[in-house]
């Protein structure tokens, strides 16, 4: 360490030593640890023991080292000494300079007081001088100030005098804002001195202001001005204390009047829509009405916006106006759809209205226009749906009644077929169209429609239900089956052609089998839902019920057709049996006329039926399915009867009667009245059956002599062949024909049937005659 310490800076080394002595935790330990080091280190410590150090040195070191050490120490001591000397010197120097400074300060403070006094004196004199100046200038200043005031006043007066001219100038440059500002600025003066000094001036300016007011008013009223300008005009007018309320009232009135122009008149509505469609592709020069309308409504809403800004207190009135316009729109719409309108047109108008509403709603959101219009739209839409259905119904009945069936030549042509086909088409096409229309309604995306979609489907379902129900009712009324309370219709019901009833019957079948399933499908496909809450009583459209209704209706109508047809025959027969005195009847010479008429009627039935009804499965020789067991026996009885009839006339009537009774005993009741089916054969057969039954009943009410009976026998015999030709259930016809003869024989006082040869002869004669007649008509 000592060797190293030599190059070290003296001071640094000392410092380090001091630091280490200071930081050493225990000097004793350090000394014990390294006695040599400690001895070196401890040279500066307080507990440094010079003697001990000396001893240690001597003991440890040789002389050379000690000498060296001595030299070193002597040098160190010398160094320390000079250091100390230097320190003392420097401090002393500083002390001396300090005393010098204090000495100089002491000398400077003297003489300051005198200067201060001088300063005070000078300031005093300055003040007195300035006072002097002040007083000398005061008068002048007063004067200047007065002059200045006068000048201001004069300027004001000048302004007022200039006011009219200035206002004029403003009018010229249309700077009404400035004019009003000038005028209101001058107002207080004019108010005070207006009656005296500035009379003329006031009058002139008031006149100009009048003009300004007028101008402002015109500006306010003129639609060509920008809204801002008009609003400004209104503000200015207000500033001029012009009664704005009356103006407002006037304006609003004007707005109200303009509503008329905005109406979508029912007559023009279609035009609106037409152009709406075509406008896109053809840019026509003349503006199409839809655009005009839109602009008008835009203008209207703009005006409303303006008025709202101009007259914030007029909101209520504007609301009312907007509502009125909306309501008017929908009223007109209702008028419009009173005529026949397609859904597209309807939607077109609807869209326009909706746009209008949206436009107005933007301006007046508080007016709740969309709610209002949604309500109105619901009503209108509902009406539209209802109307569409009633139109369809009208269409169908029109189609049905379009053809004059009563025309003779028409019967020749297949009118009934035409009617049936036309009406079937009408029903199908009509329902298809309705679906298309309604699908459009559903697809429509205008705001209200989306909300109402459920409702619409509900209405449509309900509409169909009601439509079919009322259609059925109408069919019945048309057929004259249900007499309507209306007297006029009641009268016309007499003239209802039987063929029409048949057509109605077949149409009912068609609706039941084709239309209703289709409608059901369509509804399921596109209009399901909607009956969730609207209808508590389950779905509104119940195809099952409708099918039942139409099934019943078709049967009823078919029955009615047969009834009307048989009724005709019945009248014929009634006349036939009422007129002659059967008890005194003459011998039969020929087949009676009524047979021809009867056959003619049947022929007509056959014709009508052929046009309308489908052909049944051919089963002329089969039994009617409903009573298979009966026909066997009845056919047995037939053979009995025909045997009887062909037997020689030597047979006594009495035994014949016995035989018929016997036959009756064996055979079971023949079910004559089977259910009518929708086939040509079935209807004809039923008609024939009913007529023959009527014939039998009429016979039973009479009493015949021999000739009368023979006449009946002849007639019936003649009927046999043609009837069998036309009718599917031969057995039943045979049975009925025999029944007539039996009834006649029972009611005959003297039963002797005609002999077959005579019968044959008479029938042949009749046939020949009718053939000849036919030929004649053909040749002529």
């Amino acid at each position, binding site marked *: 360490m000592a060797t190293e310490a030599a190059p070290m800076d003296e001071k640094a080394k000392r410092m380090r030593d001091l630091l280490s002595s200071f930081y050493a935790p225990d000097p004793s330990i350090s000394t014990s640890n390294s006695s040599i080091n400690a001895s070196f280190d401890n040279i500066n410590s307080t507990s440094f023991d010079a003697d001990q150090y000396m001893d240690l040195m001597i003991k440890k070191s040789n002389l050379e080292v000690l000498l060296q050490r001595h030299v070193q120490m002597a040098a160190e001591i010398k160094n320390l000494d000079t250091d100390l000397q230097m320190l003392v010197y420097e401090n002393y120097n500083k002390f001396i300079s300090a005393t010098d400074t204090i000495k100089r300060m002491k000398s400077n403070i003297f003489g300051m007081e005198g200067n201060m006094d001088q300063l005070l004196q000078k300031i005093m004199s300055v003040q007195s001088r300035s006072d002097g100046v002040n007083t000398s200038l005061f008068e002048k200043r007063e004067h200047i100030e007065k002059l200045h005031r006068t000048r201001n006043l004069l300027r004001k007066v000048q302004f007022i005098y200039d006011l009219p001219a200035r206002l004029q100038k403003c009018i010229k440059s249309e700077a009404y804002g400035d004019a009003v500002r000038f005028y209101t600025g001058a107002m207080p003066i004019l108010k005070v001195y207006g009656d005296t000094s500035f009379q003329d001036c006031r009058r002139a300016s008031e006149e100009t202001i009048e003009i300004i007011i007028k101008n402002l008013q015109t500006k306010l009223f003129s639609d060509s001005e920008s809204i801002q300008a008009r609003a400004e005009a209104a503000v200015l007018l207000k500033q001029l204390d012009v009664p704005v309320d009356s103006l407002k009232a006037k304006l609003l009135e004007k707005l109200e009047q303009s509503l008329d122009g905005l109406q979508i008149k029912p007559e023009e509505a279609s035009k609106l829509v037409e152009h709406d469609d075509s406008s896109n592709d053809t840019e026509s020069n003349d503006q199409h009405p839809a655009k005009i309308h839109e602009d008008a409504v835009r203008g209207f809403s703009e005006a409303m916006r303006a008025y709202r800004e101009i007259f914030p207190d007029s909101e209520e009135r504007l609301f009312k106006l907007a509502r009125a316009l909306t309501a008017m729109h929908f009223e007109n719409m209702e008028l419009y759809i009173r005529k026949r309108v397609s859904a597209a047109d309807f939607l077109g108008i609807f869209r326009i209205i909706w746009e209008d509403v949206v436009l107005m709603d933007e301006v007046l959101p508080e007016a709740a226009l969309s709610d209002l219009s949604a309500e109105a739209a619901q009503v209108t839409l509902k009406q539209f749906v209802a109307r569409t259905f009633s139109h369809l119904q009208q269409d169908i009945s029109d189609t049905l009644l379009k053809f004059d069936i009563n025309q003779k030549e028409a019967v020749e042509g297949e009118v009934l077929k035409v009617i049936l086909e036309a009406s079937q088409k009408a029903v199908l096409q009509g329902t298809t169209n309705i679906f298309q229309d309604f699908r459009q309604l559903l697809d429509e995306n205008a705001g209200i429609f989306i909300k109402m979609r459920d409702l619409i489907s509900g209405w449509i379902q309900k509409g169909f239900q009601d439509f079919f129900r009322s259609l059925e*009712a109408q069919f019945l009324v048309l057929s004259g089956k*249900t*007499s309507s*309370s209306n*007297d006029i219709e*009641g009268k016309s019901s007499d003239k209802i052609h039987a063929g029409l009833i048949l057509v109605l019957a077949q149409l009912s079948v068609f609706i039941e089998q084709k239309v209703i399933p289709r409608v059901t499908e369509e509804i399921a496909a596109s209009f399901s839902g909607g009956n969730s809450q609207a209808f508590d009583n389950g779905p509104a459209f119940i195809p099952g019920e409708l099918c039942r209704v139409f099934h*019943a209706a078709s049967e009823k109508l078919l029955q009615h057709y047969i*009834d*009307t047809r*048989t*009724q005709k025959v*019945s009248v014929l027969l*009634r006349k036939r049996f*009422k007129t002659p005195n059967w*008890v005194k009847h003459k011998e039969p010479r020929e087949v009676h006329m009524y047979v021809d008429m009867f056959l003619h009627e049947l022929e007509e039935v056959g014709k009508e039926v052929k046009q309308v009804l489908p052909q049944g499965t051919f089963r002329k020789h089969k039994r009617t399915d409903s009573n298979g067991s009966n026909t066997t026996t009845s056919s047995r009885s037939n053979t009995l009867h025909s045997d009887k009839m062909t037997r020689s006339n030597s047979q006594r009537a009495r035994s014949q009667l016995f035989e018929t009774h016997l036959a009756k005993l064996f055979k079971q*009741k023949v079910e*004559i*009245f089977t259910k009518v089916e929708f086939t040509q054969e079935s209807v004809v057969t039923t008609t024939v059956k*009913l007529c023959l*039954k*009527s014939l039998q*009943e009429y016979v*039973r009410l009479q*009493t015949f002599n021999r000739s009368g009976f023979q006449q009946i026998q002849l007639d019936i015999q003649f009927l046999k062949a043609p009837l069998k030709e036309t009718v599917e259930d031969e057995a039943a016809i045979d049975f009925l024909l025999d029944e007539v003869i039996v009834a006649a024989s*029972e*009611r*005959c*006082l003297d039963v002797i049937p005609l002999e077959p040869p005579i019968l044959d002869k008479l029938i042949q004669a009749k046939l020949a005659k009718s053939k000849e007649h036919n030929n004649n008509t053909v040749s002529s």
Partner: protein
Amino acid sequence: MQGGSSGIGYGLKYQARCISDVKADTDYTSFLTGTLSLKEENEVHLLRLSSGGSELICEGLFSHPNEIWDLASCPFDQRIFSTVFSTGESFGAAIWQIPELYGQLNSPQLERVASLDAHVGKINCVLWWPSGRCDKLISIDEQNLFLWSLDCSKKSAEVLSKDSAGMLHSLSGGAWDPHDVNAVAATGESSVQFWDLRTMKKVKSIEHAHVRGVDYNPKREHILVTAEDESGIHVWDLRKAKVPVQELPGHTHWTWAVKCNPEYDGLILSAGTDSAVNLWFASASSSDDKTSESPVESTRQRVNPLLNSYTDYEDSVYGLAWSSREPWVFASLSYDGRVVIESVKPFLPRI
């Protein structure tokens, strides 16, 4: 409907058209019926329903000189009845009395109380004063209406008044209004006509074609039921007789006769030439208010008015009569001479 064979049958020897309830018989439910045979000897049968209601007993059998087209029992004397008969060429009407002690006699003869000889023409029916002891009768032929006064003790009948309906109408039958004894309805070819007996003048008519049977509703004033050839049954309110109050489908073929139940309002029986008897219930509500048409109509369509159809007949049914003693019992007579007594009791709860 089911062709109930629950009825009690009774066979006449010959064909027959008419049967009548013996209203004056308060001890038994009995019916009178007469045969219609041109050549055989005709008979009048007095039938009695046994007390158990299970048998139909022939209480008396009397020969009648001619075939019987109409028969009506006197409402106040069970032994008296009227018939309309035909000899084949001409028609006649007479009042008969069943002899006392007929049970002991072998072949009792009917006593002829009176002949309505003054009435010539094709007589259709004889009507008795609807209720109570009154000796008035009405006979109707195709054109004329005769009002008779009957004196049983003197055994004579006098014409009180008469009126002609005119040639074209060809009357076919009639009914005496139980509510208004001065009113009589007669059915014609094209209309139902009404006479006031005090003046013996036609007062009004319902234009309706081919009416065959007519009956007043005994429980309800102004209500009339008609049966027509083709168009079924109609219920009319005589106060507004333009349009029928109700329409019932009737029968497959003609509806021949129609009878209102004497006790149960709205219960209507009809007989038809389709060999069936139908029991209807014409709901009272729809006959009351006609104004509310559509809803009534719809309810009417829903409720089937046909309660039952009795089809166990071999031939057309012309004769029909309710029992006034047991109003749930009716007698029907088909042309082949079969009387069938049926009870409608099973259907009463439905009304």
